[in-house]
C-alpha cells in the first residue's frame, strides 16, 4: 500500500492516514485480507511518528476496518466495507468549504460539477490527477 500525505493539510496526521487507508479500500488498491505496512515501515516511509501510525491503525481496528493477526502483522478485515459514504462526505465537505471560500453558492457548485463531470465522461479515459485543478475548460 503506497501512502502519501498532503503537507498542506492541517488536520491531525492519524486522521489523514485513516483516510488514506479508507480511500485505498474504496478505490480497490486494498482488499480484505491484504496486509497493511507495519507501524515501523509506514512511519519510516512517511517520516511520521510511529505513535501516530499506531493511533491510526488502532482507530481503524476499532472501526473494524483492520485486524491484528498475532505475530504476523496487521491486515484488512474480511468484513471491511469500503466506506464510500464516509469518503463521499469528506470529499463533499472539502468541496463545500472550498466553494464558500471562493464565494460560490452550493447550488451553483452542484450545477458546475454536473457540467464538468459530463465533459470528463466524454473524454478518453485519463487517470485521475489532482494537478488538473487549474484547468480553464
Amino acid at each position: 500500500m503506497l501512502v502519501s500525505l498532503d503537507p498542506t493539510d492541517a488536520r491531525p496526521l492519524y486522521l489523514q492516514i485513516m483516510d488514506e487507508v479508507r480511500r485505498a479500500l474504496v478505490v480497490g488498491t486494498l482488499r480484505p485480507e491484504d496486509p497493511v505496512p507495519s507501524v515501523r515501515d509506514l512511519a519510516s516511509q512517511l517520516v511520521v511518528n510511529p505513535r501516530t501510525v499506531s493511533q491510526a491503525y488502532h482507530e481503524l481496528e476499532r472501526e473494524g476496518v483492520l485486524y491484528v493477526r498475532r505475530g504476523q502483522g496487521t491486515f484488512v478485515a474480511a468484513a471491511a466495507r469500503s466506506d464510500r459514504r464516509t469518503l463521499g462526505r469528506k470529499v463533499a465537505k472539502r468541496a463545500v468549504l472550498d466553494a464558500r471560500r471562493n464565494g460560490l453558492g452550493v447550488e451553483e457548485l452542484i450545477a458546475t460539477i454536473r457540467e464538468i463531470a459530463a465533459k470528463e465522461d466524454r473524454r478518453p479515459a485519463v487517470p485521475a490527477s489532482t494537478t488538473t485543478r487549474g484547468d480553464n475548460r
Partner: protein
Amino acid sequence: MTAHAVATRGLTKRYGRDTALDRVDLQVPDGAVFVLIGANGAGKSTTFRLLMNLERPDEGAAEILGLDTASRGPEARAQVGYVPERLDHSYGWMTCARLLQHVSTYYAAWDFGYADHLSKTFALRLDRRVGTLSKGESRRLQLVLALAHRPPVLLLDEPTDGLDLAMRTRALSLLAEHLADTPATVLMSTHQIHEVDGLADHMGVLRDGRLVAQMSRDEIQRTVRRYRAEVPELWQAPPDLQAGGVRSSTRREMQWTLIGDERAVVERLTQAGALVREVSAMTLEAAALALLTQDVTR
C-alpha cells in the same frame, strides 16, 4: 519536575551582558518528540549544552529522567544520545570504526549490530579517518554515535544540518524507525520544520532566550487558528487585537493568528466589529512561523 523526561526550571544563562536563556521552563513529556525552534542565537544550542552539563547555568536547574544534570551529570549523560550543533574535530586521527569502538565501551547498552546497520544506512566508510570526513559524513557519524546505544533520551541539535536532501530524508526515516523500535523521548532543534512535521508531537518556541510557547501538536491544532475577517475601512482594532494582525492594502480585510478556543475567539472578534469570513487550522510550520515572528495574542 518529574514525570517529564526532560525538564528545566528557571534555566538562565548569560554570556557577559548577553542573556542567552532567560528563565526557561522547558517540559518535555515522556515519549514525546519535541521540536525546539528559534532564530539563530535564540538559545537553542545553549539549552542542549546546559542539559549535557557542558556549561553551568547562571540560575535554575535541569533534569533528565529525574537526574539533576549538574550534580549527577555522568548518570544523566548515560541516558542520552547527543548530536551537538558543531562538528567535533577531536580524534581526527582515529578511523570511524575505531571511534565507534571507543565510544561503545562507555555505553553498556551499545547495540553493535544496530551500529553496523546505521553505518550502512548512512553509507559511512568506516575505514576512513574521522579527520578526513566531509561535513555531511561527520554529521552522520555523530547520528550513529547518538543512536547506537538506544538511549531513552535523544538530544539532537540540528541533526540534519549539513546533510544533502536525500540524506536528510534518510536520517529522519531512520529516526522514525528508531522510535518504533526503541521508546525514547526526543528533544530536537531544527530550522527545517516541514521536515519534522510528521515526527513532532510537541513544539517549543525560543525567542531571545525566552520560551514564548510550548504546546503539544493537539493543542496547536485545537487552539492556534488563522482568522480572516472583513472589517470596515476606518475600523480600528481594539488594543488586545492589534498585535499580530495583518491588514490588507484595501483596509477592508484583516487577518490574525490567535490562540484560544475557536468559538470564544470568533465571538471576541465579532464583538469588536470584525466579520469573520474564514477560520483555518494551521500546519505546524505555519504556527511556528507565527509564534516566531509575531506576538501571538491569546
